[in-house]
């Protein structure tokens, strides 16, 4: 009976942890997507200082998120996002025209990460 109780306890803990991490990753990804949108809107308005501020915020948020997310998410998914994210600030500072493409790619990668951690039927199967 002790084994059954321990198993039930561990299983409950795993379920709680999975739900907690799932919700956390989903929320953080939403935040990051919002920040990439903010950068895009600021660029469209030619407001480079706002775009840079949003990019710095995005970098900080991503770094904070990456540390906790690496406990649950495979590192190859995170490395790709880190790579694109690290290019955003230098591109904004240089006024590169490729920034839109990179922002689109970053949004897509974050969305993929968000979807891969959501218990959708397609992911399960």
């Amino acid at each position, binding site marked *: 009976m002790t*084994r059954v109780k321990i198993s039930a306890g561990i299983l409950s803990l795993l379920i709680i942890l999975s739900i907690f991490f799932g919700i956390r990753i989903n929320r953080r990804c939403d935040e990051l997507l919002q920040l990439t949108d903010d950068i895009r809107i600021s660029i469209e308005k030619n407001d480079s200082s706002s775009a840079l501020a949003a990019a710095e915020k995005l970098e900080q948020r991503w770094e904070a998120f990456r540390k906790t997310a690496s406990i*649950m998410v*495979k590192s190859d998914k995170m490395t790709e996002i880190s790579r694109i994210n690290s290019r955003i600030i230098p591109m904004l500072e240089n006024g590169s025209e490729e920034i839109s493409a990179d922002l689109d790619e970053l949004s897509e990668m974050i969305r993929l990460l968000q979807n891969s951690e959501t218990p959708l039927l397609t992911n399960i199967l």
Partner: protein
Amino acid sequence: MIIALIRALILYILVIFAVRLMGKRQLGELQPSELVITILVSNIATLPLEDVNIPLMVGVTPILSLVCFEVIVSWLSLKHPKMRKIISGHPKIIISNGEIDRKVLRDLRFSVDDLMTALRGNNIFSLDEVQYAIVETTGSVSVMKKASCENVACSDLNISKQNSNPPQIVIADGKISDKAIAFAGLDRQKISRILQKEKLETSDVLLMAADSSGSYYIAEKNEAPPRISKGGKTNDKS
């Protein structure tokens, strides 16, 4: 490198814990579901070991959940016989009244050689001796011999024998085990008396096994022959 070492240590502890949580069973006695879980656990544990890019939690979560599912399902099947039948199947009589059930043999995909191997494992070399043979859910074969072929027991000869607990290792490598002494229905004074009688100190003893009837077996740390007493009758064997 150090990361791989730490991860290996964590997974080692986790797998030991998982196996302990599943309970004590020998490999040959595993139920089908337990065998599947054992294989799966060993396979999953290797993934985060081989690839440090895979988070440890990705390996830990399925291992723990599979073992927990197994424990809970086995508990449920203990409570519900129908569930037990679905998960573990049920024993099948392969030889009934000395006759082989060919249909069951075919259903189990048991060849005659397999049957004979299983019977030989039970010290039976002729089918004449078998009254019943049952294939258990673990795959092992239990055999009931014909009455004429059964070994003679004390009760058949009207010999009365007292039941007793098995002997306990009361001293191992010079250290007394109070738990074993209590289990054997003895106390430290009795053990001391035996050692005094044998002119031995506790530290001289490599192994001492004793039971409630007063029988004991003492092996000394030196190469001396063991000292054996059967309920008071002492005889040294060399």
